[in-house]
């Protein structure tokens, strides 16, 4: 788990960023910190306990890296290549993800709740036990992915495809569906009504 040390700014209760005394709001140079974090990524394949919440990352290729207990909550990720990455217990809640590649990832026990996805690919991924509750997707694809035990409660899908996905125990209770394809997916095994919940 990333360090839960508080931001040094008086009265701020937000956790401090990786390698810093401050949160993204109070950090004097958040873009400089993002650059130095990306620089750190180049030397290693395993990234553990990283708190990058609220930072902006653009145009980097971090494909194939393994992320454990990292936070990208409220982060802005644009033109990023996360393909073939592994994520365990990582948080992307309320992040803004634009034109990024998450294809072939293996994400388990992660939180993407309230995230905004524009033109993002999750194709051919293992997306097991993740929360996409309240996520809004535009021009996204989850095709050929395993979504076992993941949740899409109060999500909004627009121009989003879920072709040939495993939906066993997947909660699909969206607020909005427009131009969505579930072709070849086992929708009958998904949980679309609260009556089927047994917990």
């Amino acid at each position, binding site marked *: 788990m990333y360090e839960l040390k508080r931001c040094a700014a008086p009265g701020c209760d937000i956790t401090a960023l990786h390698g810093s005394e401050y949160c993204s709001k109070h950090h004097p140079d958040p873009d400089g910190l993002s650059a130095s974090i990306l620089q750190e990524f180049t030397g290693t394949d395993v990234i553990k306990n990283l708190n990058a919440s609220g930072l902006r990352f653009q145009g980097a290729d971090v494909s194939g890296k393994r992320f454990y207990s990292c936070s990208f909550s409220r982060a802005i990720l644009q033109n990023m290549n996360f393909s073939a990455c592994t994520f365990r*217990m990582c*948080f992307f809640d309320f992040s803004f993800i634009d034109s990024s590649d998450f294809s072939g990832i293996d994400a388990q026990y992660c*939180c993407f709740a*309230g995230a905004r996805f524009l033109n993002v690919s999750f194709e051919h991924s293992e997306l097991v036990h993740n929360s996409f*509750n*309240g996520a809004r997707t535009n021009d996204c694809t989850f095709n050929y992915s395993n979504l076992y035990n993941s*949740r899409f409660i109060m999500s909004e899908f627009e121009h989003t495809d879920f072709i040939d996905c495993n939906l066993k125990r997947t909660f699909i*209770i969206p607020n909005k569906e427009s131009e969505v394809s579930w072709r070849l997916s086992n929708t009958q095994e998904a949980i679309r009504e609260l009556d089927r*919940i047994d*917990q």
Partner: protein
Amino acid sequence: MTVFFHYSLHGFANVYLVGNDTTMEAAIVDPAAFTIGLLNFIEDKGYTVKAVLTTHNHPHHIDGLRTLLRIYDATVYSSNATIGDVQCRMVRDTEVFTVCGLEVQALSVPGHSADSMVYIFDKIIFTGDTLHAGLIGKTMSQYGNKLLKEQLSRKILSLSDDCLVLPGHGPPTSIGAEKLYNLGWRKTKEDIRNDQYDLFV
């Protein structure tokens, strides 16, 4: 502090290992099952399990307890005096205590079950079956449902938005996400009827 997650196929429940990396002592939250895989994981990491925190005594959350206690000499924390024939160290609502050198606060959140406890380690909240990603715990009555919602909004949703919620089932979430995207806060037809009735009282 390090938190590890283990998915138990027994009841599809989440088992958590909270480790203190200074003392190498660890606590297990909700031992749904204690498998050889979990044991090997704990031993490989070099932890000694000194405590077990149970959020409630439903089988899918405690069935691994007896096996665990045959291997480790751990104190069991619960809102019950005993779980089966296992003696527990009883915890009370709002009590703050130390487990494996880590400070924990216990909050009583009845509704799903009368003995439901939530454990807070700094900004990490183990909610058991009281609060899941997008849902609140299943209750057996409307009274239980109202009680659970009232307790959750008073004790849990009042915490800061960036607190991480690690539930007994399903994926992780955060307080900020649960405030906005939980079906449990949606009004039922019954609530709406009652609201209309209340207008005339």
